[in-house]
């Protein structure tokens, strides 16, 4: 399985040269004073943020710090209580292509693997080249030979790759990840991280990754945001060359710093759930 995924990674590095120009397609994200409360509980207390087009941002924080809420607001699943956000210069025609990938694959059990990828095409599902595009994306995540199977026979990592293909098939301008690798085993995670990085390099979309895993954040992102008490507490750049190695020593120091920050806060808080 991992061999197949690696082959998929190769397929993407070939794509990279020709499609790096596609990053023109990516949109910046601007957030101003974003607040969200659920009843009397304030989850986000004023987020201000600008993410340049094509940047890979990781958002880390303790559980319940509001990082997933931020993501849900950005993809339009929830409405902010206050503040606003926009993509690009805010004057874009039509809805921006924002996609999200969850911790659960959320595949339709009654659709084949290929059918699930086609869901990502939305209304374009009926166009003539729909099948071809879906198949191409499925090939890119290394699952073209499983196209006709039901999702229930796939492994956890394979299901997430199908979910990734579904998110990618419509060439998103912004792709949000809500702990997409959280439920996978360590080895599958490493392969998936490499796959994510390659695909991001190839397609050039703006990526926001919410994760518990600081190592994963440093491994993948250009910039790591630490959220505490509903605010951006730290905003750190990760200037490491790409493609990155899973065990790059250069990232270790940064990782340690972020972890220390999180743990210090955890001691003062009541919830020390940090991975």
């Amino acid at each position, binding site marked *: 399985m991992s061999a197949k995924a690696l082959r998929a990674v190769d397929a993407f590095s070939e794509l990279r040269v020709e499609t790096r120009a596609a990053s023109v397609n990516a949109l910046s994200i601007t957030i101003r004073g974003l607040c969200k409360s659920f009843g009397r509980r304030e989850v986000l207390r004023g987020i201000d943020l600008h993410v340049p087009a094509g940047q890979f941002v990781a958002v880390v924080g303790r559980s319940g710090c509001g990082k997933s809420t931020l993501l849900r607001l950005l*993809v*339009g*699943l929830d409405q902010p209580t206050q503040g606003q956000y926009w993509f690009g210069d805010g004057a874009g025609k039509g809805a921006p292509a924002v*996609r*999200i990938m*969850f911790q*659960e694959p*959320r595949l*339709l*059990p*009654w*659709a084949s693997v290929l059918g699930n990828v086609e*869901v*990502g095409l*939305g*209304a374009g599902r009926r166009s003539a080249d729909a099948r071809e595009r879906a198949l191409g994306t499925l090939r890119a995540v290394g699952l073209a030979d499983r196209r006709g199977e*039901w999702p*229930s*026979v796939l492994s956890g990592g394979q299901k997430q790759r199908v979910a990734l293909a*579904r998110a990618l098939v419509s060439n998103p301008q912004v792709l949000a990840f809500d702990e997409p690798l959280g439920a996978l085993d360590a080895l599958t995670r490493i392969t998936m991280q490499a796959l994510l990085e390659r695909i991001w390099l190839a397609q050039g979309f703006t990526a926001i990754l919410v994760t518990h895993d600081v190592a994963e954040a440093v491994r993948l992102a250009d910039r790591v945001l630490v959220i505490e008490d509903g605010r951006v507490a730290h905003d750190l750049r990760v200037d490491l060359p790409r493609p990155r190695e899973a065990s790059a020593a250069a990232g270790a120091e940064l990782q340690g710093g972020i972890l220390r920050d999180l743990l210090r806060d955890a001691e003062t808080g009541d919830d020390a759930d940090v991975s």
Partner: protein
Amino acid sequence: MPSSKSTVNRLDGLTQWALPLGIITLWEVGSLAGFIPGRVLPAPTDVIAAGWKLLLGGELVRNIWVSFWRAIVGFAIGGGIGFALGLANGLSRRADRLLDSTLQMVRNIPHLALIPLVILWFGIDEAAKLFLVALGVFFPIYVNTQHGIRSVDPQLIEMGRIYGMSPWTLFWRVILPGALPSVFVGLRYGLGIMWLTLIVAETIAASSGIGYMAMQAREFLLVDVVVLSILIYALLGKLADSVARVLERRCLAWHPAFQNRRGEA
């Protein structure tokens, strides 16, 4: 591979008939040996002979057809309305609040208790039987459809919304397939109620059909025809269930439960 699979399936298909055939053999032997008096239970061969006679007279086919027609039409009416209301109340909170508690109240009346009223309303016309069958079938289909729609994974619905599915697409691609396993439970349960209702209705108030044939035979002490009628009901019930099972297996091929069964066989 496919040939070996079909052989296995054929063997599997034979297994389920072993017990009924065994019982019939014992019954025949018991009758021949004189353990079972013919007045109580005629031998299977006598039942078959009676069936053959009725078949030649055309009476059997006519009665089976009449019963079959009543079952299908009553099921289509009751099941159709039950499915439609189940969809409406599963999808819309407002419709649910308006209708559900009334329907649940009516559901608690055994529909066969309405027979005297139904005879007063419709006499012993076709309408009486169709009404009873439709009413009996309505509730299992309604309840299970509603439950199926309600229990569709909300995460999948959210996913559908994010991917820009229109309400119509969301219904066809996500909600309906998700509700289907539950709808099939209702379908099979409804089929059982369908035959039960029909038997009672035809026995009490009818001038044709298998139940009527059995009651007529009782008057003339033709025990073999009575037993024949009961066996025909059993076979028709089995037939309906088999059709439902085939449909279920077709429509729910994605479901792990059905994949495993195929794998084992």
